[in-house]
């Protein structure tokens, strides 16, 4: 079974977000990781390969730094990778991203496309769905358990107090949710072998695309206001209740 895994390099979950002088998100001193939900997808793909054979191809869009994330996926056990890297892709919207990815997948042989259900940076959860639409493939999202039977995938989705079981024919786009698996670390041997694996870099031109105007543009970023310290109301109960009510109605204006 051949699997394509789409990964995105994101900030570490513990990264402190800061803006540059011209209002962009600064990546100074930030640890970059594989989007954690994409990492579940990588792990799942490798497990399927180990059980059923086939090849796992990593596809990512990003700058040169994204190679680090790709090498990690290769070190975990993926077989080869494609990095779509082009200055014109620096600020694309989800529509363009899905279109470019779909084009990059043209001509690849796959039975399954796996990726995370959402990226932890922009949290849009748009690209997998759009990609499935463009490719005309069925999709199953936010999957916590995946079983493959001949020609179909049985996908479990967890809701409040219940599990929904979906069945989709393959090939399909399936997105991973936390709980799908516990990703492995790359082994030392895997790390040493990763540099020998194929990592193909392609530009928009290589894909036969030209720089396309994004349909949505980012106008600016703002940091959330710093949280104010809490207030402690002190005194006798009768007095503190009065103070609290006054605070809630007049200052916080929540009642």
């Amino acid at each position: 079974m051949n699997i394509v895994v789409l990964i995105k390099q994101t900030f570490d979950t513990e990264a402190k977000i800061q803006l540059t002088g011209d209002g962009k998100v600064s990546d100074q001193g930030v640890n970059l990781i594989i989007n954690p939900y994409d990492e579940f997808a990588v792990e799942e793909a490798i497990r399927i390969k180990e059980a059923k054979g086939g090849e796992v191809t990593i596809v990512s869009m990003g700058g040169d730094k994204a190679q680090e994330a790709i090498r990690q996926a290769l070190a975990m056990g993926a077989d080869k990778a494609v990095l779509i890297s082009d200055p014109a892709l620096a600020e694309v919207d989800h529509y363009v991203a899905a279109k470019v990815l779909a084009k990059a997948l043209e001509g690849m042989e796959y039975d399954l496309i796996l990726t995370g259900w959402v990226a932890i940076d922009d949290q849009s959860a748009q690209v997998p769905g759009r990609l499935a639409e463009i490719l005309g493939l069925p999709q199953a999202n936010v999957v916590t358990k995946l079983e493959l039977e001949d020609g179909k995938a049985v996908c479990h989705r967890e809701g409040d107090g219940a599990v929904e079981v979906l069945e989709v024919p393959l090939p399909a786009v399936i997105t991973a949710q936390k709980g799908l698996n516990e990703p492995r670390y790359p082994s030392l041997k895997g790390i040493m072998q990763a540099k020998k694996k194929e990592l193909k870099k392609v530009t928009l031109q290589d894909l036969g695309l030209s720089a396309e105007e994004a349909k949505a543009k980012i106008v600016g970023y703002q940091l959330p206001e710093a949280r104010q310290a809490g207030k402690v109301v002190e005194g006798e109960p009768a007095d503190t209740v009065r103070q609290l009510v006054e605070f809630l109605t007049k200052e916080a204006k929540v009642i």
Partner: protein
Amino acid sequence: MPGPLDYRLSDEQLALQKMAREFARQEISPVALKMDEEEELDPFLIKRLAEYGLQSLNTPVEYGGSGLDAVGICIVLEELAKGCASVAVTSAATALAAYPLLLAGSDEQKKRFLPPIGEGGGLASFCLTEAEAGSDAASITSTAVRYGREYVINGTKAFVSNGGSAEFYLVFASTDRSKKAKGISAFVVPRGTPGLRFGKKLRKMGIRAADTREIILEEVKVPVNNLVGREGQGFVLAMEALDLARPGVGAMSIGIAQAAFEAALNYARERRQFGKPIGDFQTIQNMLADMIMKVEAGRHLVFQAACKLEQGLPFTKEAAMAKAFASDVAMEVTTQAVQVLGGYGFIRDYPVEKYMRDAKIMQIFEGTNQIQRLVIAKQLFA
């Protein structure tokens, strides 16, 4: 003109560091205090180490190991030691026992003995030291006498790392006592060989989880093809193996020191006295600055030694400097970390007193720091 010194790690080295750091943070640190208290390594953790290739760092991939070079080994050992020195020592001791085979073993021997400690997940032990032969290693009294197709080994080895739990024991014994150092030979004694017995696990000050004990060899028979290299080559092999492993001891020392520094820094940020974090006081700032200066200096000595080793340059002096300096730094920095934490540093609910106990052995084993200084001086006057 040579180019500028490049202090960056390569992408691959960064990946090794990241992996080992994550592994130490998630798998080792959470159980480190418990293992220390119980004086026992977590067997599940040892299995995980092997699974990820952290247990046979120096063994080439073709013999089931991870095939790291000296710099890679130092990167990984530092991170493991940051998690728990006992775990790092377990891995480093296995690597030490593999070196004589890598240096002088036949292909058949490497195929027979190395895969079980790589993919197989087993440990190995380097058995040189005896009760009366520590720094003066050439004076060992263990003997190996050849009878036909076998050697019969007798003797007792002291302070053997991984003593009770190794797949094989790399034993140094004299095949000709009249030749002193030149009569020493190296043998592989597999686990389960009749006559191979274990003493009681030693109760130690530091690296308490590591399995260190006496090994007793009583009429132990091994086939002649378990002789590593030639008869009489053992002492040279032992010294070469210790040389190769020495930057790694420096790296482990730096790992312990770095962990202690980070614990002290975090504490200085959080602990408030006189109305402000103690890190606001210049006294504490000075202590922390001194600590990190020494840690960084030690790390550079370690990498220098590992780089020279890897480039095929003379590295004996550099390795001795790295080992002695880094372990002295570890002792000093861990002691200072305890001081920064004050009373909390002294109790076993915080990790820093463990760092201080663990640091001490780094100044003692694999050549005491006094011997290292003699090695350095010998190179100076050579």
